[in-house]
């Protein structure tokens, strides 16, 4: 936190109407991180975001972006260095997709060829078909419009992005796809992002850090998602994060984060007696069969009847595996749906890594 990209210091904004106010807010957004402001409606989260690009001017307090006091900058220049996406996107209806994406570079006086290159680059990044570029916004689907909106905000490659419920206007399936796509892009874009949402699940998914805001934009907790799920600072946060706190944590952690158990495993050259000893040792009534480190399947006592080595028995494939990159939520799903109540963990090329059980999962979470 030594080098915040955006810093709000004692910022207050009051409106005549009294709602959406911000009271004495201090918040640092570290460079390159995605900070999600989340809170109930009217809590001032959108106001907070608009204070950063001066669409709303603070009553008192100081805001710096990249170390510079924004009140000392020309608002128009400031805004051109900050990408801005709102829920309704607000594409210009009388301009084509291409013109919409290129609008900020055009304002900044880029040469036409450079704008065209940039538009092409962004449309590829956001999987917008070349034929879409000549269309008008009203001819696009909701998801396409959202992607054009985000592409447009990125056009002049601003170091900072402000996003106000950018995926709010589409159905849940499209939303999830847009979120995944943006998460994948985010890693390579290295932007500092302030993201506003009222949806705690979206916050948990998108954030490096979440600020949970109460009325007046009071920060109830400002921490990485896992920390908020593990250690809610108070009842407000606990209520806001809601039920299924544990499940949400599972979604955020991956199998690679926790230790796996060795599980019952033998090589295919092992004798039946060795296999049975392994079952007795581990307390399972089956063993995984591994050939040169590669998982072949599993056998139980019945399958071993009348054969001399494990390799002679017919190994049955596991119905599902998990890998180190899968979330613990997927591992849990695999555990409860498998006949054996175990998730088998493999790495690339079906290499056997071990197993996960319910006990292992909860032990891993509490550590």
């Amino acid at each position, binding site marked *: 936190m030594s080098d915040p990209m955006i810093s709000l210091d004692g910022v207050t904004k009051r409106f005549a109407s009294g709602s959406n106010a911000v009271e004495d807010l201090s918040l640092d957004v570290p460079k390159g991180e995605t900070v999600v402001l989340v809170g109930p409606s009217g809590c001032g989260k959108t106001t907070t975001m608009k204070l950063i690009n001066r669409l709303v001017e603070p009553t008192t307090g100081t805001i710096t972006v990249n170390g510079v006091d924004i009140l000392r900058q020309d608002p128009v*220049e400031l805004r*051109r260095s900050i990408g801005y996406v709102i829920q309704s996107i*607000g594409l210009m209806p009388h301009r084509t997709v291409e013109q919409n994406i290129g609008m900020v570079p055009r304002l900044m006086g880029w040469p036409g060829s450079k704008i065209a290159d940039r538009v092409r680059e962004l449309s590829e990044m956001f999987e917008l078909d070349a034929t879409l570029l000549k269309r008008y916004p*009203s001819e696009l689907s909701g998801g396409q419009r959202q992607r054009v909106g985000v592409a447009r905000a990125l056009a002049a490659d601003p170091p900072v992005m402000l996003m106000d419920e950018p995926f709010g206007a589409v159905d849940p399936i499209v939303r999830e796809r847009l979120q995944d796509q943006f998460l994948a892009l985010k890693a390579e874009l290295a932007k500092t992002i302030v993201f506003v949402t009222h949806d705690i699940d979206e916050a948990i998914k998108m954030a490096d850090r979440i600020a949970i805001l109460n009325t007046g934009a009071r920060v109830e907790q400002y921490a990485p998602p896992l920390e908020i799920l593990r250690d809610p600072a108070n009842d407000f946060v606990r209520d806001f994060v809601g039920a299924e706190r544990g499940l949400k944590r599972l979604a955020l952690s991956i199998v690679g984060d926790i230790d796996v158990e060795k599980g019952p495993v033998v090589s295919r050259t092992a004798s039946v007696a060795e296999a049975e000893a392994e079952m007795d040792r581990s307390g399972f009534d089956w063993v995984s069969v591994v050939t040169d480190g590669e998982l072949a399947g599993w056998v139980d006592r019945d399958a071993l009847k009348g054969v001399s080595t494990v390799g002679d028995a017919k190994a049955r494939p596991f119905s599902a595996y998990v890998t180190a990159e899968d979330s613990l939520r997927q591992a849990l799903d695999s555990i409860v749906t498998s006949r054996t109540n175990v998730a088998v963990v493999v790495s690339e090329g079906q290499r056997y890594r071990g197993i996960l059980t319910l006990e292992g999962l909860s032990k891993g979470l509490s550590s």
Partner: protein
Amino acid sequence: MDVLVEALELLFDGSNWTGSMLDSGSILTRLWEHVFISVTSVALAIVVALPLGLYIGHRRRFEALVINLSNVGRALPAFAVLALAYTVALRWQISFEFWPAFIALFLLAIPPIVTNTYVGVKEVDADVVEAARGMGFSEIEVLRRIEIPLSLPLIVAGIRTSLVQVIATATLAAITAGGNFGRFIQNGFARQERPLILAGAILVALLAIAAELLMALVEKAVRQRSTESPDATVFDEVGLGPGVEAA
């Protein structure tokens, strides 16, 4: 029927177009005068009304004041304005052939343009404007690249209404010795020559219809250009609203 036949005979007589029709001037001369005063008064009205409408639509300030003030031009009978301007013209020793009528028509032309421009700008999707502003459009750029293009069809509709009203009303200018199609009507009444009255009336009507059609074409072209998207329907809905002069 005789009157109509005689009126049509006057109009179809080619010599009346270039030479004087019943000592009241040639049709072409009167046409030029009629078009000239109509177009110039509407042009000046555009110069005044357009910036006003854009300003109050963009800034959302002084809206009621400006709209009400501009409606004075509509509330005052053109005839009264003409009379008033005439006395002023006499008092100040300026030409009372052209200026009194010009002022009356100018005032008449303002309200539809102000109102339509204002409503057109105001009705532009607030999210489009916010997104643009948030990404670094200056106020002028918001106006130039978004609000004006999107409200252009409605602005043109306002100009169309003004122009047609002005062409119809310009006939009054003949009362203060101004020359145009109204001269035929005026002289016809003065001399009890009913065919001349009717010929003048037909000419005014035809000119008004021609202007209406021409502006309708312009409006259509602008509408297609500025909003190729189906979103354009918003303007039709607006046009039906109270106090809006979308023809």
